[in-house]
């Protein structure tokens, strides 16, 4: 199982904030492909400049393997304050 969290505009585009994928795909890239399968708008939003991914609360660049129970967050450009 992999838990996916979306934030900011990604949440609005997807129409959801949290989903479980069972079983966990083997890699981040495979998970992404699953998420955007029939969602061109979400695929574009996930590939937009500034979007970062965290796996188990660690920022990840490029692809990586996913263990069972992984928590994967997709985060667009950040802006607090």
């Amino acid at each position, binding site marked *: 199982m992999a838990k996916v969290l979306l934030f900011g505009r990604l949440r609005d585009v997807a129409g959801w904030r949290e989903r479980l994928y069972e079983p966990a795909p083997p890699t981040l890239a495979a998970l992404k492909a699953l998420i955007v399968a029939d969602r061109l708008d979400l695929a574009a939003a996930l590939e937009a400049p500034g979007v970062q991914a965290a796996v188990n609360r660690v920022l990840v660049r490029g692809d990586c393997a996913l263990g069972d129970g992984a928590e994967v967050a997709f985060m667009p450009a950040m*802006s*607090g*304050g």
Partner: protein
Amino acid sequence: MIALADRPFDPGAELNRFCQGRAATGAVASFVGIARGEAGQDAPLELQAYPGFTEAEIGKIAREATGRFALQDVAIVHRVGRIAAGEAIVLVLTAAAHRREAFEACDYLMDYLKTRAPLWKKEYGPAGARWVEPTARDLADVGRWGAAQGDDPP
């Protein structure tokens, strides 16, 4: 102390608590960011965080700032959820032996929060809602500090 607050908080009470017992400190700088908007308008801002991750990432930068500016203490409170006009969005407090370090650390932490902290801000206006991204000025501001501040911008 790094905290996310899902209700209005009291900057003055936080400032006084932070100043307590500081006979060895000398200098406390602070910054309060306030939600802009028309009085009576619906809450003009929404702030999202990634609970746990957001505090941890802000804590990393607070520790970095502590070393870089020889701080004696730092505290950050950030609102999340819907925020009404005039309410405090963020409070940054820095304590140091000398005022220059306290000011610079506070400035540094705000530049970080504006551009690289895991927070997402939506503005609600008459023309609809939009997600805020760092402005050119925000990026120039954070660029003043060199590459040391957290991860490279994406």
